[in-house]
């Protein structure tokens, strides 16, 4: 007998309601052990199956028991007894072992051992028995007289019946004999007949009973062999018929139950197999929250998680979960119990054990009567998933914050997560690519290189983005080209403006200087004008004087003229008179001529008359001459007077003219004075204006300075802009156009300044002219 050591004194109790089942082959090698057995034995399935059954033997067990066991088994008979078994760790447990040979086709195939939890009395009895047995103070099988008695008691039915028949027969025979003796032949025959009939009946009864029993034994064995198609006579009436019917019923029921059980079992087995092999971790607990089923996955899961779970629950043992209570998972078992006790629908929760994330989904298991018989708990070790979740979350966070370089590890991923990780990696790749492209393009754009475009192929939004970016770059190229052009233009223009402003500023200064000179000149002019005014006043006075004198003279002249007029008149009168005389002379002449004519006509007689006429003519001529002379004289004097008059007239005129002239002069002088006043006023205004102009010119100069400064700054800015734009390499032309030489413009400005300086503004006109010249040049420039 194999003695398994060491042993402890700890008793392990079978879980109530469980049965331990093992199958062994004919040699005692375990071919099958159910979970309960495995659990309680402490051994693993692998350790049990294929090992001899005696490995669980407890050394306290008497070898005789096992002897007995084997004797029975070899005899093809079942055996039952309480047995003390040893666990792997040396603890012991009592079982009520029921070992039976299993027949297949009439032959013993294997031995089936079903063990129940024994009652305490059984254990005590067994303990005492085995102690005795060990002390060789008792035997299992009754020996000696006990055996004999037992044997006698267990005689076969025939034998017993025979004996009983014989026993009953004796009084019958006795009575028959009595009857025979009493020659009650009818009663004797009756009894004989009855006895014989009864014997026959009895025999047939016994035979039928025994046959029935044997039949039933056979059927029972067959039924034990799972042969449920046994012909059973159902029509038989008596108890045997009842028994048959009961047997039949049992057969049928057993068949159907077995079939049902088989079906259910196979279904359950299928389902269990399925569940065993299902990826989900399924754990079933009974109403007391003992774990009654764990599928392979959950066992593996807990095995894997054991180390981690031990961090939190130091007593956790994955291999001992089967049959353990769920409470051990919880810190507050009562809470869970309360929750689960009232569970009527799905309850999901998540818990973290030892760093492992477990999701549990608990569902109540209800039997057909809708009574809760247990709870099925699906565990999901989401640790991996959580880890992956975290990985994915971290990747997503990374992507969210722009960290696109990390990828999810593909190595430890399968199935959905593999696909997901792959997908996320691909997504990240795509995003990375997109952003890399965009980034590189933007970078080159940021560094001014506008020739870089996104060339990779994309779709959808990325394609849109790519197109937009490329379009943007194109547009930027265009714009920068244009802006560059404009910038250059602005640069040039601003430089021109700067130089022009410089010019303007200088001109303004010049103008200011000129204005100052103008002001000075205006001052002089003012004084001059004042002088003029004074002089004009003086002239006015003098002119007035002159006028007065002239007027006086005019009066004198008038007097003279009038005198002359009078003279003239006198002369005229004289002339008239002389004319008269002349006429007279003329007439006289004519008369004398007439006289001469008459005289001539008269001839000789008229000679004396003609002499007289001649003389008269002479006289007339003399008087005519005298008159003529006088006339001439008078005419001369008249002429002279006239001349004189004319002179006087002229003088008068002249004086008048003088007066008029003086008047005019006076007026003019007055005008001059007024004009001088106005001039003064005007000059004052001009002064004001000049002062204003000066001010304004200074302001202008200042503004021009400002404008110059502004334009210089604009020029600088535009130069900056051009330089900045040079930073951008566009596709059309290099942005590095030459900035218009500031040296040139500066030189131009200097030239202008020189020009201005070379001809210093002296007097206004010249300077104005120069300014206008410069203006022309400015316009030309």
């Amino acid at each position: 007998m194999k003695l398994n050591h060491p042993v402890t004194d700890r008793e392990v109790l079978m879980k109530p309601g469980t049965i331990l089942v093992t199958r062994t082959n004919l040699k005692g090698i375990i071919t099958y052990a159910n979970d309960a057995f495995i659990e309680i034995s402490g051994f693993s399935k692998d350790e049990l199956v294929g090992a001899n059954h005696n490995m669980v033997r407890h050394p306290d067990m008497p070898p005789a028991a096992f002897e007995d066991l084997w004797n029975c088994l070899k005899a093809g008979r079942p055996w039952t007894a309480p047995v003390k078994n040893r666990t792997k760790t040396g603890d012991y447990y009592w079982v009520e072992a029921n070992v039976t040979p299993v027949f297949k086709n009439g032959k013993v195939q294997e031995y089936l051992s079903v063990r129940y939890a024994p009652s305490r009395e059984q254990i005590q009895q067994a303990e005492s028995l085995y102690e005795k047995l060990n002390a060789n103070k008792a035997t299992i099988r009754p020996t000696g007289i006990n055996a004999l008695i037992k044997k006698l008691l267990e005689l076969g039915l025939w034998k017993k019946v025979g004996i009983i028949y014989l026993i009953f027969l004796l009084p019958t025979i006795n009575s028959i004999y009595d009857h025979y003796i009493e020659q009650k032949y009818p009663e004797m025959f009756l009894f004989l007949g009855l006895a014989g009939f009864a014997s026959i009946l009895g025999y047939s009864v016994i035979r039928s009973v025994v046959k029935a029993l044997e039949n039933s034994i056979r059927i029972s064995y067959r039924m034990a062999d799972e042969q449920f198609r046994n012909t059973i006579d159902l029509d038989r009436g008596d108890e045997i018929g009842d028994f048959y019917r009961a047997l039949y019923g049992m057969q049928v029921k057993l068949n159907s139950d077995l079939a049902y059980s088989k079906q259910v079992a196979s279904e359950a087995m299928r389902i269990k197999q399925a569940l065993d092999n299902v990826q989900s971790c399924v754990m079933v607990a009974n109403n007391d929250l003992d774990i009654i089923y764990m599928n392979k996955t959950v066992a593996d899961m807990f095995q894997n998680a054991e180390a981690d779970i031990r961090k939190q629950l130091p007593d956790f043992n994955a291999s001992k979960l089967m049959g353990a209570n769920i409470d051990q998972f919880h810190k507050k078992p009562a809470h869970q119990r309360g929750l689960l006790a009232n569970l009527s629908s799905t309850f999901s929760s998540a818990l973290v054990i030892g760093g492992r994330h477990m999701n549990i989904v608990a569902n109540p298991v209800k039997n057909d009567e809708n009574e809760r018989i247990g709870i099925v708990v699906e565990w999901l070790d989401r640790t991996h998933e959580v880890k992956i979740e975290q990985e994915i979350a971290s990747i997503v966070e990374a992507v969210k914050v722009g960290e696109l370089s990390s990828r999810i590890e593909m190595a430890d991923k399968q199935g959905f997560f593999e696909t997901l990780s792959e997908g996320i990696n691909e997504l990240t790749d795509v995003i990375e690519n997109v952003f890399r492209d965009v980034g590189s393009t933007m970078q080159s754009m940021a560094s001014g290189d506008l020739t870089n475009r996104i060339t990779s192929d994309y779709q959808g939004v990325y394609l849109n983005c790519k197109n937009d970016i490329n379009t943007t770059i194109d547009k930027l190229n265009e714009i920068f080209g244009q802006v560059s052009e404009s910038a250059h233009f602005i640069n040039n223009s601003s430089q021109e403006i700067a130089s022009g402003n410089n010019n303007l500023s200088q001109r303004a200064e010049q103008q200011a200087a000129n204005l100052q000179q103008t002001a000075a000149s205006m001052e002089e002019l003012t004084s001059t004008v004042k002088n003029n005014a004074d002089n004009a006043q003086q002239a006015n006075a003098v002119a007035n004087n002159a006028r007065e004198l002239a007027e006086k003279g005019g009066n004198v002249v008038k007097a003279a003229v009038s005198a002359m007029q009078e003279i003239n008149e006198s002369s005229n009168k004289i002339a008239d008179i002389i004319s008269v005389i002349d006429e007279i002379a003329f007439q006289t002449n004519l008369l004398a001529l007439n006289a001469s004519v008459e005289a001539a006509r008269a001839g000789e007689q008229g000679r004396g008359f003609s002499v007289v006429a001649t003389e008269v003519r002479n006289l007339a001529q003399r008087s005519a001459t005298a008159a003529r002379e006088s006339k001439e004289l008078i005419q001369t004097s008249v002429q002279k007077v006239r001349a004189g008059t004319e002179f006087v007239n002229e003088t008068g005129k002249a004086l008048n003219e003088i007066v008029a002239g003086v008047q005019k002069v006076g007026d003019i002088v007055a005008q001059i004075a007024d004009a001088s006043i106005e001039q003064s006023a005007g000059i004052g205004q001009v002064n004001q204006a000049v002062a204003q102009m000066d001010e304004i010119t200074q302001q202008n100069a200042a503004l021009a300075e400002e404008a110059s400064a502004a334009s210089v700054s604009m020029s600088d800015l535009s130069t900056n802009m051009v330089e900045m734009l040079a930073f951008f390499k566009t596709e059309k032309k290099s942005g590095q156009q030459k900035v218009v030489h500031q040296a040139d413009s500066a030189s131009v400005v200097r030239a202008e300044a020189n020009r201005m300086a070379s001809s210093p503004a002296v007097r206004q006109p010249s300077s104005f002219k120069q300014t206008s010249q410069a203006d022309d040049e400015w316009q030309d420039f």
Partner: protein
Amino acid sequence: MTADLESNQHVEQFLTFELEGEAYGIEILKVQEIRGWEPIRKIPNTPDFVKGALNLRGSIVPIVDLRERFQMQKVEYTPVTVVIVMSVNTASGTSVMGIVADAVSDVLDIKLSDIKEAPNLGSKINTQYMRGMFVGKKNMVMLLDVDKLLNPEEFVGIAVLAAIAEGK
């Protein structure tokens, strides 16, 4: 009348008058009267040089303006302007006419021998009315033949001739 007084030694008296500064002379015997200028009554439909007529003590005397007659420049009549009334011998008799002269000068006693012949200027120019020229002390006096000058029938002819002479 003049014819019987004509002899080389005969002294004739000519009345000289002025016309356009030129001295002209006419026989004194022809002269009836010398008058001063008076307004003349115009007569229409007469040649221009016929100024008009004067009322001379009851007789109507036509006045001729020699200036116009000789196609000279017309001048204004001055108080010295005289009207020389002459009696003209015409075919029809003696008619009294007056001429307007600028002034009347002397009565000259001219010897007929001193009268120079008028120059012949061609047949076209009618110088019939010129009796001759007299060289005086100061100037040359053109002596006119009044009859031919103031012949009314010749007026037209003279005028025409004068016009021809003027080269019109």
